[in-house]
């Protein structure tokens, strides 16, 4: 429970209707999309303006109270998990689209704006907002910026960071700064580039300038059925090797197809590996390239190839793919979503190894992946009511991440590190790498108040001596000297 004077100050800052302190209401905020981590916050505030955010953050700074920003709470790594006894700043009420500039291809939005609303807002003029996480109908731009979210179409169009031109940010001190600009290359360090993907640990984004993109002239979507995900994967490699850059390249395996079918009846062919290829651009070019894609799929043994014939067919194909995570709930009582990345060429070995690891512990793993950029979403299926199975499933999911790192990849391609993968970050990066990141953290947030104890594997204080030099083993052994 927060001290009554702090509660009073927060009420002063955001008004009675902007403050939640009742235990049952607070429960709504105790977790995000990663529901096995739960912490009850001390209070939740719902500011309506940048000034209110600043006032709240200043109160936190004064009392050295941790705060956690929150968008829609769909994060899958525990990023919006409250800090014990701290304040949750929900940006849900800051949901206005403030400005649209078609001549300069940008929009300015508040952080609580829902991702899909941006595209809807500019659709009539033939534009869209490119990053399209599967959760786009509910997740917020503020959350997207914090996670540097991706989506199926990021292969061609780039991630949130590519589309974030400028940010208004309330620093953990309460100071307001403007990072980046709608005009390119503003002089100084690229702090907007650093803030995107910082998972709420560097401050609160209160205004975001996003690039909007002209809708392509035509979009064609093709489904190809293979016996194995490996064959689908080889087709992906061949498409890329041929110099094409499709807007999306997705693969689903048998279990994932089964789940998607059960949930949304996408009429997918029943197969071992389903490949979804989307090409967009000028009509003449897309048609020619699609012929090549077809040929490559056939070469790799595709036994059914379908080209969506209408916008409805295309939408249905995507509906199945985008519903895949949630759909897995239909074939398993519980599941863990992972988000590893591997170099595309490692796909066959990594898939085989995941299968082997799962078999050893007698669990099933469904696979959905953004194959074009090697981003795997292994879904580890388990049953919580079977004693000990949750631990085994968790352990398997972390071992899969280690496998990704060992294959030259990353522990996360779009869901972020958050609370879930703190230790795994320590597996991926060495101590000096983490210490260097910490320098940035300390410059923004010397008191570690913004989303503390996330991302990094162990708590650190900014007073810790930064950037330790690790002596070379030869030096320690006295065999060699540097000078």
């Amino acid at each position, binding site marked *: 429970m927060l001290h009554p004077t702090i509660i009073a100050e927060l009420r002063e800052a955001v008004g009675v209707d902007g403050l939640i302190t009742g235990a049952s209401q607070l429960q709504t905020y105790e977790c995000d999309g990663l529901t096995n981590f739960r912490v009850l916050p001390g209070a939740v505030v719902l500011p309506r303006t940048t000034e209110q955010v600043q006032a709240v953050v200043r109160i936190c700074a004064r009392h050295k109270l941790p705060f956690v920003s929150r968008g829609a709470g769909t994060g899958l790594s525990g990023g919006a998990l409250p800090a014990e006894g701290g304040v949750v700043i929900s940006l849900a009420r800051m949901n206005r689209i403030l400005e649209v500039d078609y001549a300069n291809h940008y929009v300015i939005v508040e952080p609580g704006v829902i991702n899909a609303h941006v595209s809807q807002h500019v659709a009539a003029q033939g534009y869209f907002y490119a990053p399209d996480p599967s959760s786009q109908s509910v997740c917020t731009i503020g959350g997207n910026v914090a996670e540097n979210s991706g989506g199926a179409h990021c292969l061609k169009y780039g991630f949130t960071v590519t589309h974030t031109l*400028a940010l208004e940010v309330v620093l953990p001190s309460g100071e307001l700064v403007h990072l980046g600009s709608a005009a390119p290359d*503003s002089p100084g360090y690229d702090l907007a580039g650093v803030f995107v993907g910082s998972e709420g640990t560097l401050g609160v984004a209160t205004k975001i300038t996003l690039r909007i993109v002209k809708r392509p002239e035509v979009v064609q979507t093709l489904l190809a059925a293979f016996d194995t995900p490996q064959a689908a994967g080889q087709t992906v490699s061949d498409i890329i090797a041929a110099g094409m850059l499709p807007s999306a390249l997705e693969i689903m395996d048998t279990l994932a197809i089964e789940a998607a079918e059960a949930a949304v009846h996408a009429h997918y062919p029943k197969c071992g590996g389903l490949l979804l290829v989307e090409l967009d651009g000028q009509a003449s*070019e897309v048609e*020619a390239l699609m012929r090549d894609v077809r040929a490559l799929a056939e070469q790799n043994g595709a036994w059914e190839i379908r080209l969506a014939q209408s916008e409805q067919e295309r939408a249905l194909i995507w509906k199945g793919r985008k519903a895949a995570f949630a759909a897995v709930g239909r074939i398993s009582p519980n599941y863990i979503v992972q988000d590893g990345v591997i170099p*595309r060429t490692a796909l066959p070995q990594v898939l085989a190894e995941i299968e082997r690891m799962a078999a050893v512990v007698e669990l099933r793993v469904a696979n959905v992946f953004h194959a074009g950029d090697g981003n795997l979403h292994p879904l580890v299926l388990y049953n919580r009511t079977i004693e000990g199975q949750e631990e085994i499933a968790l352990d398997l999911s972390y071992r899969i991440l280690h496998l990704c790192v060992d294959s030259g990849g990353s522990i996360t391609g779009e869901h*972020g590190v958050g609370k879930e993968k703190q230790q795994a970050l320590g597996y991926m990066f060495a101590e000096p790498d983490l210490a*260097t990141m910490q320098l*940035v953290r300390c410059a923004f947030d010397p008191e570690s108040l913004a989303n503390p104890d996330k991302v990094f594997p162990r708590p650190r204080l900014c007073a810790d001596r930064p950037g330790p030099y690790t002596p070379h083993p030869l030096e320690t052994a006295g065999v060699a000297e540097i000078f």
Partner: protein
Amino acid sequence: MSTAELTLDEGLARLAAIAGQAHARIRGETVEVAPADARETAAILRFAQENGLAVTPAGGGTKTCWGNPVEAQIRLSLERMSAVREHSWQDMTCTVEAGCPWAAMQTQLARHGQTVALDPLWPERATVGGVVAANDSGALRLKYGALRDLIIGMTIVLADGTVAKTGGKVVKNVAGYDLHKLMTGSFGTLGVITEVNFRLHPAEERTQTWTANAGDAAEFAEPLRALLDSQMVPSAVQLRVGKDGCALDVRVAGRGEAIEDCARRLSKIFSEIGMVPSSEAVWGARQELYDAANATILKASMLPAEVCPVSAELRHWATTEGAGVQCVAYPFGLMTLALQAAPPAAFLVQLRARLRPTGGSVVVLAASDEMRAGLDVWGCDADALGLMREIKRRFDPNRILNPGRFVGNI
């Protein structure tokens, strides 16, 4: 090298002990040293830090005059770190040492028909590290994005000798902070970049360039808007403004049928002005501005829709003032200007006043010492300057790396 404790010769001896006799030498008042790898780089920086010596990391030396002048006691040359370490062509990524000349890297990548999709200045001499530290980019940025979007990882050496890796070798990766974004464009003030990982694109095989000519840049405003608002995806577009008029160049890459299709569309969009096939040589225009005698070179950033009107205003200004202004502008809002026969101070003030209200900026890149004196090279009025200084303080508390070169005297 004249700190209280060390003579130039002592410094040379210490640095030679790190990098080898053959790779350290005295040049005027500085010691030039070329380490073989990140570990030697770390040792040099630790030595500099312990002795309070300023270090300037050096690549091809093509952009040393950008930013404020630096007086360094150690010139740390990356020339020995010049290899393409890895080209995973099937994954379309590569790892390149910072001292590798840009063109040499591209030659290597071209063996598999791939490229880092960026066209920086003086590619034969400019090194990967220098291009990245200065955040240079050319016309290709329209289609392929800024340099920072092509970089997926880096190895950097900090002032205290910490060797850190950031990012990785995969295109999609959100683990930890993107320090490589911080390093891109940091002008060697936060650390020495020793290795860069890039994402690659297929090299453009067939390209075609067209050019339209007009007396005034304002005439291009409408067709350019139509072009950018169309569904065409040119790989480069540039506006050239000079004494004799203005030209707009468009380059398209793709298969035969796509290029023909573009030709038809372009002739429609530019039906009034007329557009004719021209040569690839026009894309050297930005670099050619630097050859103008006694010119002050400025980089102006503006909103895309301001490119044509600002170009027209500049030409008008030049005529009335009797000054010479040539510029090459890209439609995403970057313009390089060569200003002749006019002291830049007043011009700079005017142009900044014109561009700032919409978030634009003007930076002085190249100028004679005489012209440069008294100029605010960066013109950075960001409210985040305090934060930038704090980042510098955390990374380089003793200010040994390119001290004073960057914005706000960072």
